[in-house]
C-alpha cells in the first residue's frame, strides 16, 4: 500500500471551525526500539490514529540466496544459519534435510534425535525471546529478564554441545559435526526440568493481568482470509485458528513419532486471532516444546552408542534435479527450494522465510489502529528482520 498524495494533503478541518489539521507522516524505524532490527514502517497518522502503514524492508538485505549459489553445501549452512538469527539451528536443519533428501542419504538415528532435540530447544529459545520482547513493548519490563534467565540455561547446554550460543553450526550434511559430550543428556534433562516449573513465573506475570488484557484482547485481530492471502504461518496463524503445523502435518526428523495422539507433541491453536491469542499460543507452545525436548532427551539417553554422521566424499555434489523442503520453524514455515545441476554448488536455493509473510500483512492490519496499538500489534507479529530481508 503506498501513500498517495491525497492522503498527505492538508485537510482543512470540517467541523472544527476553520482549524486546519494535517495528517502526520511518521517513519517508525529503521531505528526504533519497537521494530527490533531495522524494519521501517512509514505510517500516516491522524492524531494517534493510523491512516495507512507501509512496511519498508530491505535495510538488512544481504543477498543470502545469491551467496548460496557460490558456496558449497557445507558453506551454505553458515549463511542459512543467519537469516533468522533466533532460530539458527532450525534453519540449518532445513538445508541439510533438503540436501539429504536429494542425495537420498540416510541419517543415523542418533543424529536425527539430537537434531529434533536441539530444534525444539531452539524453538523454546526463540519463543522466550519473543515473549520477553512483546511484554517489553507493552511496557512490562520483567518478563524479559525471566525469559533471559531461562534462555541462559538452555544456551549453556547448547554451548557445551556445539561451542556456539547463537549460531551453532552443529549440522553437517549426513548428520552432526560431533557426538554428544559425555553426560550431556543428563545435564540437558536437568535444565529442561528446571525450566519447566519456572515457566509459571512468566505465566503469572502475563496471563490474567488486566492491563495486559486491555492492551491485547481484541487488538490486531487477524482473519483467516488475510492469513491465507499473505502466507502468514506459524504461531500467528495458529492463534487465528489455522490448524497447521508441519511437525504434525508433514513430519520430518523424528516428529512423526512425537506428534502422535497421546504423545508429547501437541499443536496449539486459539480462535480469537488477537494479540492475546498469539501470546497464549507462544506461551503454550514453549511448554509443549519443553515436553517434546524432554521426550527427545530421554530417548537419546536410551539409544545405543553409534555414529552421528555419514562419511562424505571430498567434494559433495547433489544430483541434478529440484526439490522443496519445508520445516516448521519457531516463527512459521521455513522452506528451501533447491535446484541443482549436479555441481558442488546449488544452481538456485530459494528461501521461503516465515517473517516475510508475517510482516507484509502489517499493511492490512495497522490502518485504523492507534499508535499505541501499533506497538502491541508489531510485538505480537513475531518476526526477525534478518528473516524478512534475507
Amino acid at each position: 500500500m503506498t501513500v498517495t498524495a491525497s492522503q498527505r494533503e492538508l485537510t482543512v478541518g470540517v467541523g472544527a471551525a476553520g482549524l486546519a489539521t494535517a495528517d502526520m507522516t511518521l517513519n517508525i524505524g529503521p531505528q526504533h526500539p519497537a521494530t527490533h532490527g531495522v524494519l521501517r514502517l512509514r505510517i500516516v497518522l491522524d492524531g494517534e490514529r493510523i491512516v495507512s502503514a507501509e512496511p519498508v524492508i530491505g535495510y538488512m538485505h544481504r543477498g543470502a540466496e545469491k551467496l548460496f549459489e557460490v558456496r558449497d553445501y557445507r558453506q551454505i549452512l553458515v549463511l542459512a544459519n543467519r537469516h533468522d538469527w533466533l532460530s539458527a539451528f532450525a534453519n540449518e536443519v532445513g538445508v541439510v534435510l533438503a540436501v539429504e533428501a536429494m542425495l537420498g542419504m540416510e541419517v543415523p538415528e542418533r543424529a536425527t534425535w539430537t537434531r529434533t532435540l536441539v530444534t525444539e530447544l531452539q524453538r523454546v529459545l526463540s519463543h522466550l525471546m519473543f515473549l520477553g520482547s512483546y511484554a517489553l513493548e507493552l511496557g512490562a519490563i520483567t518478563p524479559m529478564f525471566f525469559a533471559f534467565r531461562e534462555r541462559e540455561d538452555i544456551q549453556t547446554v547448547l554451548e557445551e554441545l556445539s561451542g556456539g550460543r547463537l549460531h551453532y553450526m552443529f549440522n553437517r550434511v549426513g548428520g552432526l559435526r560431533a557426538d554428544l559430550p559425555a553426560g550431556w543428556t543428563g545435564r540437558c534433562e536437568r535444565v529442561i526440568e528446571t525450566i519447566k516449573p519456572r515457566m509459571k513465573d512468566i505465566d503469572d506475570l502475563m496471563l490474567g493481568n488486566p492491563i495486559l488484557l486491555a492492551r491485547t484482547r481484541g487488538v490486531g485481530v487477524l482473519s483467516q482470509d488475510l492469513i491465507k492471502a499473505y502466507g502468514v504461518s506459524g504461531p500467528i496463524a495458529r492463534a487465528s485458528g489455522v490448524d497447521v503445523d508441519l511437525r504434525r502435518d508433514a513430519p520430518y526428523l523424528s516428529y512423526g513419532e512425537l506428534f502422535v495422539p497421546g504423545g508429547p507433541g501437541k499443536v496449539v491453536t486459539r480462535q480469537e486471532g488477537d494479540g492475546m491469542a498469539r501470546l497464549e499460543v507462544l506461551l503454550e507452545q514453549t511448554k509443549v516444546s519443553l515436553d517434546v525436548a524432554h521426550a527427545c532427551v530421554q530417548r537419546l539417553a536410551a539409544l545405543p552408542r553409534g555414529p552421528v554422521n555419514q562419511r562424505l566424499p571430498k567434494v559433495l555434489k547433489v544430483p541434478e534435479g529440484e526439490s522443496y523442503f519445508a520445516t516448521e520453524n519457531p516463527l512459521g514455515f521455513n522452506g528451501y527450494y533447491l535446484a541443482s545441476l549436479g555441481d558442488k554448488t546449488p544452481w538456485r536455493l530459494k528461501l521461503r522465510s516465515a517473517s516475510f509473510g508475517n510482516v507484509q500483512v502489517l499493511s492490512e492490519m495497522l490502518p485504523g489502529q492507534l499508535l499505541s496499538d501499533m506497538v502491541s500489534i508489531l510485538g505480537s507479529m513475531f518476526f526477525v528482520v534478518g528473516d524478512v530481508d534475507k
Partner: protein
Amino acid sequence: MSVLEAVIRSVAVVAAFLVLPLLVGQTEHKFMAHMQGRLGPMYAGGWHGWAQLIADAAKFVQKEDVIPAAADRGVFRIAPAVALIPYMAGLAFIPIGDGIVGADVPASAFAVLAALGVGILGHLMGGWASANKYSMIGAMRGAAQLVAYELPMVLAVASVALAAGTLSLSGIVEQWQPWWLLWQLPGAIVFFIAALAEINRTPFDMPIADSEIVFGAFTEYTGLRFAFFLLAEYAGIVVMALLFTVLYLGGWAGPLAASLGVVWTLLKAWIIAAIIVWMRVSWPRLREDQLHRLAWVWLIPIALFQLALTAVVVVMTR
C-alpha cells in the same frame, strides 16, 4: 523570618531535593533488580553499588549538550527547569515532622497541588521545542493525561482537607487519627492512582513510552538537561510519596513521635515509593484512552463518593 533562617530553610529543601530522589532511584535499582532475578548495581562506590546514581550524574555532566538544529532553542533550554522546579517548590511546603517544613504556609495542601500542576508545562515545552514528532506526540499525551488525573487528585485532597477542617498539611497531620485509614481509603486509592499518572509512572507512562515513541518529550535531550528531566521524575515520586504519607498515613504519627517523627514520615514515604517501583516491575503500560476511561468511569465517581462520605461524617460528628 530572618534572612539567615530563610537561607537555611532553602538550603535544607534543596539538599532534601537532591538527596531523596537519589535514595528513591537507588531503591528502584535494587528492588527492580532483585524482583527480576538480577543483582543491580554492585560496583560503584564499593558496597552494593551505593554510588551508582552519583556515577550516573557524573556521566551526565560530562556529556555534550546537543540542541537539535530545528529546535526552538530558548524554550528547549529552559524546559527541564520548568519540569524540575515545581517539584522543588512542592517539596518546600510538605512537612516531614512537627514543625519541620521548608515553608509553613496556611493553605499548604493547595500550594503543593498548584505547584505540581506547573510541571507538565516543562514536558509540553520540551516536546514542542524539540522539533521531533515523537517528542510532540509524547508532549500531547502528557497534556491529555493531565485532564485525567488532575480532577480526581484535587477531589481526593479536598476530602482530606474537609475531614481535617484545614488546608494546612501540618494541620491535617495533627487532626489525623488511625481510623481515617479506613474512612479515607477510597480517596487514598484514587489519590495514589492519580499520583502515578501525574508523575508518568507505570502503568501510566504513556507520555514516555520508550517502546512506542522512543522517549516522548525527552527524545532529543542529552546530558545534564536530560538528567534534570530524570531528576524531576524521581523528585515527583518523592513529592507524591511524602504527600500521600502526610495526607493519608498520618505523617509523623507513630511510637515516640516527638523524637522519631521525621523517621516515621520518611519511612512511610519510602514504603510508598517502593510500591510505586513495584508497580513498574510488575505491570505493562495502559493506553491513553484507557487511562481516561479509568479516570472518568472510576476515579472521579469514587472521589466524589469519598467527598460526600467525608462531608456526611463531618456533619454528623461535629
